[in-house]
């Protein structure tokens, strides 16, 4: 199954349009990221239906360490559903998108950033519409577990 999504045409980096969440909502696609991130206020995230499940979790990135909260949010992207997806919340008004979508969200898919037509294309071959994203830190190291789930 192939799904095509619009990218912001006036940006050089891949910024996905998510106007169905609210007009102007966007996500920066980060193919180097493990964790999906919400980059704006917790108030807005909670207004989208997210629930906090863990606070003050230390995440490390290329530029250093940062503390954030982990929320669960059910997200739909075309016909793909991420039920109660774990998402890190860390506010930064300067990031030109509300979400950062991580590579792990597209595990086991063929995903293409078409910068000529400004399209993001996801091809799934497993016929599974549900994808679980779970941030797990039981052994003291943050992991992301991603798996497809049968819709049957």
């Amino acid at each position: 199954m192939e799904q095509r999504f619009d990218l912001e045409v006036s940006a050089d980096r891949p910024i996905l349009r998510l106007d169905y969440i609210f007009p102007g909502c966007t996500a920066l696609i980060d193919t180097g990221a493990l964790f999906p991130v919400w980059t704006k206020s917790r108030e807005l995230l909670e207004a989208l239906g997210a629930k906090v499940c863990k606070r003050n979790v230390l995440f490390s990135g290329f530029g250093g360490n940062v503390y954030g909260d982990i929320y669960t949010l059910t997200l739909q992207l075309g016909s793909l559903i991420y039920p109660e997806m774990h998402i890190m919340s860390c506010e930064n008004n300067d990031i030109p998108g509300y979400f950062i979508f991580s590579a792990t969200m597209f595990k086991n898919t063929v995903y293409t950033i078409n910068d000529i037509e400004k399209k993001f294309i996801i091809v799934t071959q497993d016929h599974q519409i549900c994808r679980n994203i779970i941030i797990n830190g039981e052994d003291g190291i943050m992991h992301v577990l991603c798996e497809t789930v049968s819709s049957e």
Partner: protein
Amino acid sequence: MAERLTRKQMADKYPNQWLGIRNIVYNGREIETAEVIYTQRTASELGLLSLKGEDVQPLFTTPDMVFQLGAAGGMNRGTEV
């Protein structure tokens, strides 16, 4: 009072910030002009207004001027050598 600006005028006049815009005129999928109704607001404030149904769309004026370094974030203005 709202001012109607082109996409380039928005970037030149309000660089590196979020605007609230409405009555957008598109050229294909590209914003040609829009009325700027909010400046000096955060993305979250504008997102909440949009989510609640106000006729406003958040827009970051210069999405390629900000450079993040992984989770730490930050803006690189560069240093003269």
